[in-house]
């Protein structure tokens, strides 16, 4: 089992905190693991929900990912806990998408209720909000229209802000494949949005 004791080399306080929690969880401390869940569940759900268009399936995938993380605590070999959890969630999301192919559901119900959060703030004038909502709606639908691999790469790169190397590690493909998926995915989105591009050019 790898020695996870945070060393001086781990400068990032968040990373040090995560490593301490992982170490305690490995020792059987369930509360420590649940602290880790609390710290990361929002970001991980946001990631998976963008990759798996059905929200219930996305929730199930995230829950399954945390189960998997708990089962495989002994397999964590150090490094970034966040990347490790993201990698498990990406795999769970991929599994969920494969299952979804067998049982198709209505994609992206997010605008049917208020549990999805449109950005607000200084730009919260009604006309702009309507435009933003419509743009999000058509873009979300277009995202559902590209391949799962391309969608995963775009979500990780454009929305989650990971770099190419991190995405390659998480998805288990080469750097070139990641770039290709992002490029082809964007071209695919542009093709799907061709009739609605005025929403984005404004």
């Amino acid at each position, binding site marked *: *089992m790898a020695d996870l004791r945070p060393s001086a080399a781990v400068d990032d306080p968040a990373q040090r905190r995560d490593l301490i929690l992982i170490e305690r969880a490995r020792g059987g401390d*369930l509360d420590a*693991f*649940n602290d880790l*869940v*609390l710290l990361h*569940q*929002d970001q991980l*759900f*946001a990631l998976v*929900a*963008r990759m798996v268009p059905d*929200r219930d399936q*996305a*929730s199930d995938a*995230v*829950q399954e990912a*945390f*189960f998997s993380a*708990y*089962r*495989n605590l*002994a*397999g964590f*070999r150090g490094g970034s806990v966040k990347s490790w959890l993201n990698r498990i969630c990406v795999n769970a999301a991929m599994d969920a998408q494969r299952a979804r192919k067998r049982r198709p559901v209505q994609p992206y119900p*997010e605008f049917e209720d208020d*549990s*999805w*959060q*449109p*950005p607000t703030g200084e730009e919260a004038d009604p006309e702009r909000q309507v435009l*933003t909502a419509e*743009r*999000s709606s058509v*873009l*979300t639908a277009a*995202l559902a229209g590209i391949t799962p691999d391309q969608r995963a790469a*775009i979500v990780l790169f*454009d*929305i989650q802000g990971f770099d190419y190397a991190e995405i390659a590690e998480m998805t288990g493909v080469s750097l070139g494949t990641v*770039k290709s998926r*992002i*490029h*082809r995915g*964007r*071209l*695919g*989105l*542009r*093709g799907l*949005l061709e009739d609605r*591009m005025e929403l*984005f*050019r404004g």
Partner: protein
Amino acid sequence: MPFPAHIRPDHDETLVVRLAADDLAPRELDAVRAQVVECPACAQLLIDLRSIASATAELPTPRRVRDFRLTEADAVRLRPAGWRGLLARFGSPGFAFVKPLAGGLAALGIAGLILASFPLGFGASSSGVATRDLTAAGGSASAAPAAAPGGSGDGRSFGGPVAAPGGSGGVGTSSDNGDGVTGPASGPEVAGAPGATDKGAPTDASAGRDQATNGGRPSTLVVLSIVLLAAAIVLAGLRLIGRRLA
């Protein structure tokens, strides 16, 4: 995806896509910028791709609808104890080496069995080969002029074409039943033995059987190959069960 209608066929839209992602090498930048300047469709594609990327980054964040913390019951269920826990360790990433190891052992085992089944002398018991040659030499064991001294018949010899005088155990004890499967005999192969002709020579299949067995006992190579295959199967099985448990 085909080129958008207005992009010239000699313009590479992939380069525009890479430019939009700031993913071009410095030496490519000038050429692509020139392409964008002279081609309105390329310029529009660049603007559209950047707009889409920026809109994607601003998509609303989905709010989770469930708390994903684990309960005590989950924890108990997820951490197998006893022999299940032991097996589950084989499914952990730390044991990822087991799969290629099992593959390698299986490949070695299969290769060993193949070698043992070909009449190349590998894995042959010295007695089997000697006997075959004795048989080929004239249909009578006593007609063979030589057999290796001290041939042990233990199957450890990888019988090269060594001619050695003075046979012992094989002579007279070999039975010539015409199919190359003979009784115990000693000594490696006798190359160019006088009187050796095709007459009575065993078939390839029977030669293979000769080499793979030693008077009914499998040769060391065969045994080793089977052990390797068995080890590979056990390791692969442990990994599979471990992954299922994990």
